[in-house]
């Protein structure tokens, strides 16, 4: 080996050592970030539990007052107590959303699959939201689906996804608009069901199509935004759909409404 070859080998060997060190440092950083992420998730879980307890006490006290257990309320008092209850339940929903997110993020969710009818479930969620929609003079209709076969999935989780999509549609559609639920079969043998929740609302810009499915992301995140929420709803919906080996996406144009889609295999892989 000539002198210059020896130098080249030494240089190469040094370079390898440096790269090894960098790789170790990189791994340490990844481990540290993972540990911090786990801490953040644990913190969210703890704080949500701790927020839930006093809130449960507030709601219970308000219900005791509302039900006249401590004496009959006059109309103004009843209105005020009803305001406490509405606010309390809204807050409770948000805390529960954070808790659901924590469970999905830390893979604490296991699916409990049963056979059920998707259109029937959609009707149930539709009815639950009817009063809220009526306040904005919105109609919610199911366009088809009577001939759809039963799906084998976690009913509660799919209900959560549908409730989230319909809730969003109500939130972001102006007075007098229309919301619909439709079903179609996809795949060469129709082995996948596609659920659509559409609305005539304000729509979503193309560059936000991915953002809205990310946790804590809201298209308008300013404190003065008209629609408050945790920004977790669609992130949770995506996780729940993906746990079923399905996909979720949106098609939309600003000012022309939105159509959210998610797919579910009729039979889960491996079954």
């Amino acid at each position, binding site marked *: 080996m000539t002198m210059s070859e020896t130098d080249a080998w030494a240089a190469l060997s040094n370079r390898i050592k440096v790269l090894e060190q960098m790789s170790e440092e990189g791994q340490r950083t990844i481990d540290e970030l993972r540990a911090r992420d786990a801490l953040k998730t644990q913190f969210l879980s703890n704080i949500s539990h701790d927020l839930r307890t006093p809130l*449960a006490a507030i709601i*219970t006290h308000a219900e005791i007052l509302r039900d006249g257990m401590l004496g009959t309320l006059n109309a103004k008092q009843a209105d005020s107590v009803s305001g406490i209850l509405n606010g309390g339940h809204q807050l409770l929903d948000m805390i529960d959303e954070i808790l659901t997110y924590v469970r999905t993020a830390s893979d604490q969710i296991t699916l409990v699959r049963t056979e059920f009818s998707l259109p029937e479930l959609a009707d149930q969620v539709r009815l639950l939201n009817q009063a809220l929609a009526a306040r904005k003079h919105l109609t919610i209709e199911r366009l088809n689906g009577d001939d759809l076969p039963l799906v084998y999935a976690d009913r*509660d989780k799919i209900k959560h996804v549908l409730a989230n999509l319909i809730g969003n549609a109500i939130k972001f559609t102006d007075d007098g608009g229309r919301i619909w639920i439709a079903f179609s079969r996809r795949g060469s043998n129709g082995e996948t069901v596609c659920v659509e929740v559409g609305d005539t609302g304000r729509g979503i810009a193309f560059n936000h199509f991915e953002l809205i499915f990310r946790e804590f992301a809201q298209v308008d995140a300013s404190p003065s935004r008209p629609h408050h929420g945790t920004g977790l709803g669609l992130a949770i919906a995506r996780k729940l759909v993906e746990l079923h080996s399905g996909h979720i996406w949106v098609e939309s144009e600003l000012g022309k409404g939105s159509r959210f889609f998610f797919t579910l295999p009729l039979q889960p892989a491996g079954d």
Partner: protein
Amino acid sequence: MAPRILIVEDSALIVDAFKVLFVDAGYDVDAASTIAEAVEAGTAVRPDVMLLDLTLPDGNGLDIMQALKERDSLPRVTLAMTGHNDAKSRHSCIEAGCADVLLKPVPIAELLRQIKRHLAS
């Protein structure tokens, strides 16, 4: 004699709210905030109904069921209360001998109805 309820719950805020509710509804009420207190109260006052929070500072609320069983002091009805609406925790509560599992916060009308129903059965 009025039926006796033992509230096992570590949040004083919740205990206070339940006391107002149950006293007004005509029940005698006791409260315990730890497993140790609950086992002692459960043995001493022999409640008809135990409302059981599952997350207690000294452990899992379901341990109380086992301890009371060993002392032959299980209440007629135990209703578990949990913040988790999942099949697994529901299953472990029923397995431990709870009559039902209620998701916190339980609407008061529902809570009173459940207690009445289980006491009658």
